């Protein structure tokens, strides 16, 4: 096939969008839009990297901070949430061998998150609303710096994302519990108990012969437990959004509500409690579940120590509710007992729970050697390495002594946050995408293995390198969330910029590879109306 023919029809013309089921199309839409938002984040990141070195005249300082505000939110909600939700809305029914509870709810889930992300991104871009994702009170309601109208539209966008997230939560739990038409009545309560881990917990108190069998598989249990954190997080962010909106609407109507009506420290505690349910909750739980799924699908073997893995997921869920105070170790009014217990001690459990998931995944892979170094395996190993680097970095900064000299430096955002997200999380997601690609496309073939290899190495080196150079700058005193005008940290920022460039090259190689695999017609076909509206996950003949 000629290049143009492959570009239009895909590798060997194997991908036929019209053969996709409604569920496959919807999943692919989630993934494609999630990847487009990832490109947004990459470009934003590169703009900020350049700006850290040289303040570009066409971008104002206010615009820079608006980009800095949108960047993590688009990354988390627009990219990661969409890809993860698309994958899980497919995988839960796939693993439970029953249809998704509601396609309509899943469609609205997709529309609300896609539109909500675009709305808050655009509102920030135009109005320069820039309180950052932390929204430390009373900054989001500081109308000397920000427009209340721009802010209200921004918050509205976030609220839509949260409503979309709640639709996802409902759909996942209903899918686990409901009885499909024509099926024998399903034990909804017992399925829920198995998914959340209460059944497994009570098994610990029973003799072996009286222990109950797990009704849902381990990956479904991980998805359910991570989804609990997503629900709690959506509640907290919605509540906070409504609070901020009250101040904004009052300002638009010409009334000045006193900012001191909200206690800044109490606000910081509840907001971080909710926000941390993403970073230290659902991300870690979803990632562990995805590692287990990938390891078992790659090897075709049972998971090593699977009962302990299941118990660790429950422990991780409980830990995620009690670790928020490590974000307040530099807040002098925060009670010392919370700093030590929640901030240090409970947070240290994450080293154990994530270390356990790391070991179990590696042991499962090891037990099946020799394995072929497929794309999904190499990206899975990259993802494991990412968390092996980033989690200990997080544990170190969650220390009363070390936090005093690390908090808000580039060290936090580099070796911990960016390495966790770019290497740990994103490489795990790429592993899942490479693994699910043939299942979701009914056997489409990847266009180029060389491009997949280029994607792997540029992403791995770029991500770790960027985190490392940001970390070095942080240890030299460079703060995050500010600007330097005299070239104090230019060397590190230029090196981080080069690594960011590698990440961009890697993504473009991946995106081009996927487009060439399914063809431009195929991409358009994914977004064309669905002809087959039944609830099959894959075509019946498959």
């Amino acid at each position: 096939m000629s290049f143009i023919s492959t570009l239009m029809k895909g590798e060997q013309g194997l991908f036929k969008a019209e053969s996709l089921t409604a569920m496959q199309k919807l999943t692919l839409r989630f993934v494609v839009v999630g990847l487009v938002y990832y490109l947004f984040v990459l470009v934003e990141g590169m703009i900020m990297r350049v700006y850290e070195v040289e303040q570009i005249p066409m971008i104002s300082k206010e615009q820079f901070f608006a980009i800095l505000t949108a960047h993590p939110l688009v990354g988390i909600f627009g990219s990661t949430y969409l890809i993860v939700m698309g994958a899980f809305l497919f995988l839960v029914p796939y693993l439970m061998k029953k249809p998704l509870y509601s396609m309509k709810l899943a469609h609205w889930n997709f529309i609300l998150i896609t539109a909500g992300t675009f709305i808050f991104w655009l509102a920030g871009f135009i109005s320069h609303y820039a309180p950052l994702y932390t929204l430390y009170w009373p900054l989001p309601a500081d109308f000397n710096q920000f427009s209340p109208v721009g802010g209200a539209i921004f918050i509205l966008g976030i609220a839509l994302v949260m409503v979309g997230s709640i639709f996802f939560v409902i759909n996942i739990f209903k899918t686990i519990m409901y009885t499909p038409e024509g099926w024998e009545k399903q034990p909804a309560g017992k399925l829920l108990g198995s998914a959340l881990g209460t059944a497994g917990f009570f098994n610990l108190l029973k003799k072996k012969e009286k222990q109950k069998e797990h009704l849902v598989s381990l990956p479904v249990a991980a998805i359910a437990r991570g989804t609990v954190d997503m629900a709690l997080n959506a509640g907290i962010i919605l509540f906070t959004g409504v609070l901020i909106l009250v101040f904004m609407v009052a300002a638009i109507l010409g009334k000045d509500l006193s900012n001191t009506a909200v206690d800044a420290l109490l606000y910081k505690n509840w907001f971080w409690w909710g926000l941390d349910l993403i970073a230290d909750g659902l991300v870690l739980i979803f990632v562990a579940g995805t590692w287990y799924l990938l390891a078992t699908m790659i090897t075709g073997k049972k998971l090593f120590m699977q009962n302990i893995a299941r118990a660790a997921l429950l422990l991780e869920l409980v830990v995620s509710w009690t670790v928020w105070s490590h974000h307040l170790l530099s807040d002098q009014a925060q009670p010392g007992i919370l700093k030590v217990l929640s901030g240090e001690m409970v947070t240290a459990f994450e080293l154990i729970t994530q270390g356990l998931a790391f070991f179990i995944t590696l042991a499962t892979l090891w037990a099946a050697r020799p394995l072929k170094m497929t794309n999904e395996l190499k990206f899975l190993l990259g993802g494991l390495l990412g968390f092996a680097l980033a989690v200990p970095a997080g544990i170190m900064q969650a220390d009363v002594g070390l936090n005093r000299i690390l908090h808000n430096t580039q060290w936090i955002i580099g070796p911990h946050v960016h390495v966790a997200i770019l290497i740990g999380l994103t490489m795990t997601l790429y592993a899942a995408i490479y693994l699910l690609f043939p299942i979701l496309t009914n056997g489409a073939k990847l266009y180029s293995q060389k491009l997949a290899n280029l994607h792997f190495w540029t992403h791995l080196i770029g991500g770790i390198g960027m985190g490392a150079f940001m970390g070095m700058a942080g240890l030299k005193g460079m703060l995050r969330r500010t600007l330097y005008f005299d070239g104090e940290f230019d060397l590190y920022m230029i090196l981080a910029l080069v690594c960011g460039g590698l990440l961009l090259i890697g993504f473009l190689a991946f995106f081009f590879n996927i487009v060439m695999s399914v063809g431009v017609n195929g991409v358009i076909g994914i977004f064309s109306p669905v002809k087959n509206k039944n609830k099959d996950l894959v075509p019946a003949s498959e």
Partner: protein
Amino acid sequence: MVDSALVLKGQTIAYTCYTVVIMLVMAWFALRVTRPGKSKVKPALFFTFVGFLTLLGVSLHIITYNTIPWAEMDLNRHEITADRSFAIDVANHEFILPSDKLIMEVGEIVEFDVTSHDLTYGFGIFREDQSMVFQMQVVPGHRNDILWKFLTPGNYTIRSTEYSGPKGVAMVLENVVVVLPSGSGTE
């Protein structure tokens, strides 16, 4: 008291060594998992690993509490009397100092008591080479106090370490903290 620069150096060495080791381990694993060979993983290895992580997680904080002097001083600061105290206000993205320069001596326990009258800010002290000595958050409506003992004479810069909107970028007061050698007589 150990200087924070030394603690940072120690942390840098420890973390760098760890990253090199874990990357080598993963490279070794990636190579070996594609080759035939013994594949059984003994549960004892798993439980040893879990025990090691538990020990590491708990001991890290115990070690730092006992070796990083400001950790204990910080948690027990209400029982310690400072040799010198500075009350600093922050409003409209500006630090308002009690005097043009904050002068102190090496070895004194100095209290910085910072009050925000509007937004959440940060309060950090930096060396002339830009490296950070320490920082804390400055939350409105609450007391934000910290005790510190400087070990090296010199001029230090105050900078807000928390984002407070684009205007916060300019919250830098260069060389306003002056630490004199011990016994210089700053009264």
